[in-house]
């Protein structure tokens, strides 16, 4: 079933919409959530909550594209649960990805955060626009979707080592980009 047809089911308040969403995007949502919360039960709950969120938001919302919209809800809910857990209980791919990025974004002399999340998002968007398409996708897959290097290698057809090297270079480039704009000071 196409996304437009699924949205029509939402607009008709037909509960089959949820079944169709789950059929089409259930696996994508669960794997995304699992990589963040590192628990199948938590991931299942996050995905179910995301479906409920979508049910309540559509209508009036008519998201396009639907999968990106669903992923955003799943990610937000999963991160909420992730930060509710103690640091010791987190684990998973997302934790590893954040540890990686922390080295690139943390300045030794930084005393406090100097930018808001929305402001930083605009800076990151500008940075992403400087990257070639493939590197941009790889960056997103790692730090938005929390994919492992192996998963990314599977998606891109690159070797795991190649993905790892590319990510290292992108992080280095990000660090220089942020420093040039004095984001840390």
């Amino acid at each position, binding site marked *: 079933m196409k996304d437009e047809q699924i949205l029509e089911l939402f607009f008709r308040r037909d509960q089959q919409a949820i079944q169709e969403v789950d059929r089409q995007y259930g696996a994508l949502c669960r794997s995304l959530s699992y990589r963040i919360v590192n628990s199948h039960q938590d991931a299942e709950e996050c995905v179910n909550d995301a479906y409920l969120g979508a049910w309540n938001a559509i209508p009036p919302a008519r998201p396009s594209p639907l999968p990106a919209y669903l*992923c955003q809800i799943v990610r937000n809910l999963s991160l909420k649960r992730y930060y509710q857990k103690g640091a010791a209980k987190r684990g998973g791919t997302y934790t590893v990805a954040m540890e990686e990025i922390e080295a690139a974004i943390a*300045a030794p002399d930084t005393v406090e*955060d100097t930018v808001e999340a929305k402001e*930083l*998002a605009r800076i*990151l968007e500008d940075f992403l626009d400087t990257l070639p398409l493939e590197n941009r*996708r790889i960056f997103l897959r790692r730090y938005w979707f929390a994919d492992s290097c192996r998963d990314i290698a599977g*998606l891109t057809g690159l070797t795991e080592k190649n993905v790892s090297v590319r990510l290292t270079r992108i992080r280095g480039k990000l660090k220089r980009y942020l420093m040039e704009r004095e984001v840390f000071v």
Partner: protein
Amino acid sequence: MNAKLFSDAMGELDCKYIEEALSYNKLHMSKRKSKRAAIFIAAAMAIFVLCGFAAYELGLFDPWFQKPSADPLQTVQSAIEGQGDKEYTVFVRVEEMKVDESETGRVVDRYSGSEFAKARGWTDEYLAEHFVVVWAKYYVEYDHTKTFMDDGYTEQYFYLIQDPETGKWEIIDNTSPNTSASP
């Protein structure tokens, strides 16, 4: 700046970046489906070839080199001796043969009125007159670099049907060779 702020900022990215990264899934899924289909076809072909090879090696659908004859015993003899023409047979010699009346009666009873017989147009009367079972004992040696078949003294039943027009008997089936027979 900490990872939480970075994470929050990533959550604020324009949807187009998410969509762009998601397009990998579609590409990957279509590639994966194609790959799975290719793997499935390759596996099916490999199984088919292996089964075919195994069946060939075991002689499961290896047809008899038979010469239909008016005498069912001669037909069976030609079939057994015809084994000698196969590349994996080193030696074959017919030891003993006979029409087995009791086995013929038993098999005719089994076939009579069956779907199997109907599918072949065999009426009960036809089976009663044109069907026999021949028991044969023969000695055979195989080249075991070419086949897994057991050799030695072998007993086997052959089921034959007579063509009413030509009067010749032809083997239509046989039991598995029994190599536990004594010399």
